[in-house]
């Protein structure tokens, strides 16, 4: 699973499973949240990644991370 804030580039080079990350500077982080909430956010993103890795996918699919 590719987690990035620039998913069109990911799909352009053929990536099949892409999760849109939070920001370029922190794909799996959100500094405006407190430490606990940020970890929860990160866990949530990784959980989604894990779930999508075990499902069938059409080529070059991009999911929005549910935050």
């Amino acid at each position, binding site marked *: *699973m*590719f*987690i*990035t*804030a*620039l998913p069109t580039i*990911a799909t*352009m*080079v*053929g*990536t*099949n*499973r892409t999760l849109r*990350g939070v*920001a*370029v*500077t*922190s*794909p*799996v*982080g959100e*500094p405006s949240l407190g430490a606990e909430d*940020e*970890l929860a956010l*990160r*866990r949530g*993103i*990784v*959980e989604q*990644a*894990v*779930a999508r*890795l*075990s*499902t*069938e*996918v*059409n*080529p070059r699919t991009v999911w929005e991370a549910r935050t």
Partner: protein
Amino acid sequence: MVIKVAHYINQFFAGLGGEDAAGAPPLRLEGAVGPGKGLGFEVAVTLACGDDYFGEHEEDALAQLLRWLDEEKVDVLICGPSFGSGRYGYACGSLAREAARRGVPAVCGMHPESPGVLAAEGAAYVVPTDAKVTGMRAALPQMAALARRLAAGETIGPPAEEGYMPRGLRRNEIADLTGAQRAIELLLAKLAGDVRTEVTASFDDVPPPPPIADMADATVALVTESGLVPQGNPDRLESNRAHAWLSYSLEGLAGFEAADWETVHGGYGTSVANADPNRLVPLDAVRHLVAEGRVGSLHETLYTTTGNSTPVATAAKFGQEIAQRLRDAGVQAVILTGT
């Protein structure tokens, strides 16, 4: 017609040794060496270089090799065949590209998926070969034939006819029908189930691998192009145009501590990430999921590089090499983060 030929090979085919000699600097040898003897014409000079040396000192290696090439004033350069090798192929493609751009036509031979094909950037001709060295007997005469014609200044026909890989050029020709007529024909064919196109996106088509049956049994690896490295950047990862990917142990780490890790990527503002490197690579979150049994295990090595202005061919090579390592280690899935 007598043509003057230079041949480029790696440390192995030059007889210097295997992986142990992969760090050999560029070398110039008289006449044909190794597979060069099978080309069917006289080789004036053989140039060689260790695959690792080329990868780690690309600019210097190219400069030296091109200098020798320049001195010889050859009619054509032949590189390889490098078959399925990533590093050797990359070196062949890169040298061939630079030679061709300096007016020396160049021919390589390699497997179509070798990163050397991209490295050639269409400037040099690439003859497709087997992945394995058993393809040598077939490859040499094909490469030699094309080289001979290039040296003679002959016009080379289209790839399918002449047996080389498309060079990524799109050239104009006059068809029998107008674009509109062809569009209607293609559309009716598509409606009948026959989907054809005159042009595709020049991007990779990688069929998605089957999904992981149960992530609770799977080993997941963490890979990143965000430039994450141990504090102090001990191995000097570049902030752009990375020459290598690096690997670091994650053993015993519950997460990335700001004091122990940093990012050297020059392509984005790094303060947010440096304050908490888990924002780049979610190590802490993955550890939690492993502890809870949601993920089988974490591969205890981080693979990292800087994806900033790194040429596509280089990145492709890195990807292949890292993927090979992961496969050898029994990893089933990767979380790759990009910036």
